[in-house]
């Protein structure tokens, strides 16, 4: 019997994933209404459950894609993968008011620049405090604090060791998870209410995954504005870190 279920889930991965995610969202909605009396949004709880399941999946399978590495749930990898995620993000743009986005364009760009420089500086300083002194490792670890894609891209480009690259990925993934989890709680503090504030958030909080999940758990209407800016984050990081930032770090280290 179990074999039949497993085969059915494997052959219909995406369909099974819709069912699993739907059930998780149903449970989250229930927890949100009954246990937190609506204080914590259902989607925030669903994301937390998702992360917990990812941990369990990683433990069980020993793989790198969380629950998606467990054969029964392989479709989760497709549903939550880059293709469908980006497709859904683009679709949210249908709700964007062009005027709002245009008015906040410059502040969004400014936030994006600050959101690249600031994490990089923090990453470099922390790496320095942990005893890394060479420019290559410092730059790679700084880049990891920008996003978990910028870290390995930069590290590979400037020839960092695989241990340092792994550490930069860990920093980036952890940052994304922290943004996902802490955004709903800190929304009031960050004044996340308007499209403009969401664009500032998208620029500064980095990673598409962190920003869009964080906003989804806070206010669904703000998602497209944050995503619009955040999608440029990885590109800008990959542009600046292995070039300008690396040269700057090299110049400072040499003194």
């Amino acid at each position, binding site marked *: 019997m179990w074999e039949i279920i497993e085969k059915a889930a494997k052959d219909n991965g995406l369909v099974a*994933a*819709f069912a699993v*995610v739907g059930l*998780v*969202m149903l449970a989250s909605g229930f927890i949100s209404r009954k246990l937190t009396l609506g204080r914590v949004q259902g*989607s925030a709880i669903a994301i937390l*459950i*998702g*992360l917990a*399941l*990812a*941990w369990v*999946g*990683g433990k069980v399978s020993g793989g790198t894609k*969380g629950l*998606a590495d467990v054969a029964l749930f392989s479709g*989760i*990898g497709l*549903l*939550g993968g880059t293709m*469908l*995620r*980006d497709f*859904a*993000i683009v*679709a949210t*743009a*249908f709700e*964007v*008011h062009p005027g*709002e986005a245009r008015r906040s364009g410059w*502040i969004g760009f400014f936030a994006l620049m600050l959101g690249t420089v600031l*994490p990089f500086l*923090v990453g470099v300083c*922390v790496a320095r405090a*942990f005893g890394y002194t060479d420019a290559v490792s410092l730059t790679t670890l700084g880049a990891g*604090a920008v996003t978990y*894609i910028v870290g390995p*891209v930069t590290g590979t480009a400037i020839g960092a060791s695989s241990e340092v690259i792994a*550490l930069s990925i860990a*920093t*980036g993934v*952890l940052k*994304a998870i922290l943004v*996902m989890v*802490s955004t709903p709680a800190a929304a009031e*503090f960050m004044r*996340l*209410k*308007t499209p403009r504030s969401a664009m500032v*958030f998208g620029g*500064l909080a980095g990673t598409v*995954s962190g920003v869009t*999940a964080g906003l989804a758990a806070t206010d669904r*209407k*703000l998602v497209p504005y944050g995503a619009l800016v955040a*999608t440029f984050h990885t*590109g800008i990081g*990959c*542009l600046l870190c292995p070039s300008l930032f690396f040269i700057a770090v090299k110049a400072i280290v040499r003194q």
Partner: protein
Amino acid sequence: MIIYGTALLALCHMLGIICGESLGRALGMKTNVGGVGIAMLLLVGMRAWLHGRGRLCPTTEGGVNYWGAIYIPVVVAMAMSQNVISALRGGPMAIIAAVVTVLACGLCISLINRAEKVGSQPADKPL
């Protein structure tokens, strides 16, 4: 027809990704630069253009809106496929770097957004 909406979305998506990829190549990188952002801008533009010509019927819009609404479940699936184990295995350095980064950025967001109230538009303007 509902497929018109989904096809419009797919076309904008593909065009955006191709533009982002080309931009990345032009800048000498292997990564996509803002492809999704460009796709979003394309969709915003296409919507305004079609709306102006009266070519956007509710069924067509439904083909896009469904995917916009499926967005949160997709994010939950994304959370389920994160590499949580390795993130936690990064040890104290990764944890401190991530926490300090998030705190510093959160502070900046708060400072910038608190200044918004001074602006001309009312803060509680509905979206």
